[in-house]
């Protein structure tokens, strides 16, 4: 059962990911990205991270992507016109990418033998209670710092996006 669920949503994630990269209009890419995030949320659930699955859907898919779509529609950018490429990126990037992938796969295989399995429900401590407890005890300092970070981000966004003073 787990395997089938994993496979379905993994395939959806990859297909949507490819779509993000391949589509010419940013809107299509944005929608595909939402799809990726949704399937990832399911995968998180399979891994026992209930709180984060919910956060993924609410924050990422629900707020960040909406922001993206707002901006795309605001700029009314239109599809990409194909001219002028970065040679460096193409010639070097693709092989490097494959190298990267290959290396990752190799290391992962070596480090994690197939006997390690993921069962749904094997990890019970992903709920809100556990995450909250950890967040407010052991990770209190980063938590507070992150709130300052969000404040700075808000300030930055406001300053950047307002009209120039005449």
């Amino acid at each position, binding site marked *: 059962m*787990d*395997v089938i669920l*994993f496979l379905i949503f*993994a395939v959806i*994630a990859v297909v949507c*990911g490819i779509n*993000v*990269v391949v589509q010419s209009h*940013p809107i299509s890419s*944005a929608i595909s*990205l939402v799809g*990726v995030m949704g399937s*990832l949320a399911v*995968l*998180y659930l*399979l*891994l*026992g*991270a209930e*709180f*984060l699955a919910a*956060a*993924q859907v609410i924050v*990422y898919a629900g707020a*960040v992507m909406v*922001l*993206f779509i707002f*901006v*795309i529609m*605001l*700029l009314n*950018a239109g599809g*990409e016109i194909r001219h*002028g490429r970065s040679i460096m990126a193409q010639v070097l*990037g*693709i092989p490097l*990418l494959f190298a*990267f*992938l290959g290396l*990752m*796969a190799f290391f*992962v295989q070596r480090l*994690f033998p*197939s006997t*390690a*399995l*993921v069962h749904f429900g094997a*990890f019970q*401590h*992903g709920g809100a209670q*556990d*995450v909250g407890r950890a*967040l407010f005890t052991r990770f209190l300092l980063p938590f507070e710092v*992150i709130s300052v*970070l969000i404040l700075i*981000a808000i300030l*930055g*966004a406001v300053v*950047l*996006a307002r009209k120039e003073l005449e």
Partner: protein
Amino acid sequence: MPGVPISWYLILSAVLFALGVSGFLLRRNIITVFMSIELMLNAVNLAFITFSYQFKQVDGQIFSFFVMVVAAAEAAVGLAIILTVFKNRRTLNIDDVSTLKN
């Protein structure tokens, strides 16, 4: 078999990450590039949570949580920058934003 091998999750994370990188390298629209970055961040989140399961600790999920918050902040500021760039240059082509050249 009752479960999914952990390595599959990690390979999936790597694949998504690679897709994000390729999108970052190959696309010219700034917003698309940005979305590729988000894709990469998601892949990383998956990896963190997988490891959190692996070691049966909640710490990985906390990291993932922070990543999400940072991604949100970054998205806000980055999109504001894109808006400003668009206002000044009327283009969303990443290759045109190269005044730091040489």
